[in-house]
């Protein structure tokens, strides 16, 4: 079975500084990896995904993530954080059942201070 771990419940960063939200995965075979974001009182929104190919994936709102097979990581990054980036971030792989079950953990809360 595939699983992910987000080791930090919360990440605090000052506006303008770079941010990293960590995700490590455990999977057999080649993983599909996704990042979704949940803004307050709103549903989840897709940020980016890794399927195959280039290890550096660029997504919405200036976010990017690097797939690192040797470290089994898929950390989310942004060079310069905005206060509006404050939200709950979920890293999620699908289960290996041929469709997209997207097993979510508890996520990482990002707080960007002005």
């Amino acid at each position, binding site marked *: 079975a595939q699983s992910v771990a987000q080791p930090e419940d919360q990440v605090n960063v000052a506006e303008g500084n770079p941010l990293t939200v960590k995700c490590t995965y455990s999977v057999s075979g080649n993983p*599909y990896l*996704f990042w*979704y974001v949940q803004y307050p009182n*709103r*549903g*989840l*929104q*897709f940020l980016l*995904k890794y*399927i195959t190919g280039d290890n550096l994936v660029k997504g919405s709102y200036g976010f990017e993530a690097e797939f690192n097979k040797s470290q089994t990581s898929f950390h989310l990054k942004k060079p310069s954080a905005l206060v509006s980036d404050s939200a709950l971030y*979920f890293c999620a792989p*699908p289960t290996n*059942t*041929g*469709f*997209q*079950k*997207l*097993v*979510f*953990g*508890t*996520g990482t809360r990002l707080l960007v201070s002005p």
Partner: protein
Amino acid sequence: GAGVSQTPSNKVTEKGKYVELRCDPISGHTALYWYRQSLGQGPEFLIYFQGTGAADDSGLPNDRFFAVRPEGSVSTLKIQRTERGDSAVYLCASGSGPSGANVLTFGAGSRLTVL
């Protein structure tokens, strides 16, 4: 429509009552998912439809929960004899197909409160 629409946005009911939550997916999306998100938790998978059929209902917590998608578009999540523990935000998502590579588009959710 342009996005996934869920109604009602808020539902308050009494313990023991019956509740229906509706999801209208993006037009043409064959895959539809229901998730439940409790306070402070990530979304928990409930059920997945591909077309009209429930391809995986392994996440439904018990037989009080049931979902249908009779025409392969709109879906209704039905909860019988509601309990206080059913209080949560119920999220619906749709996708363009069954591939694990497809992106899901989520609705804003239906917040259910059972008194």
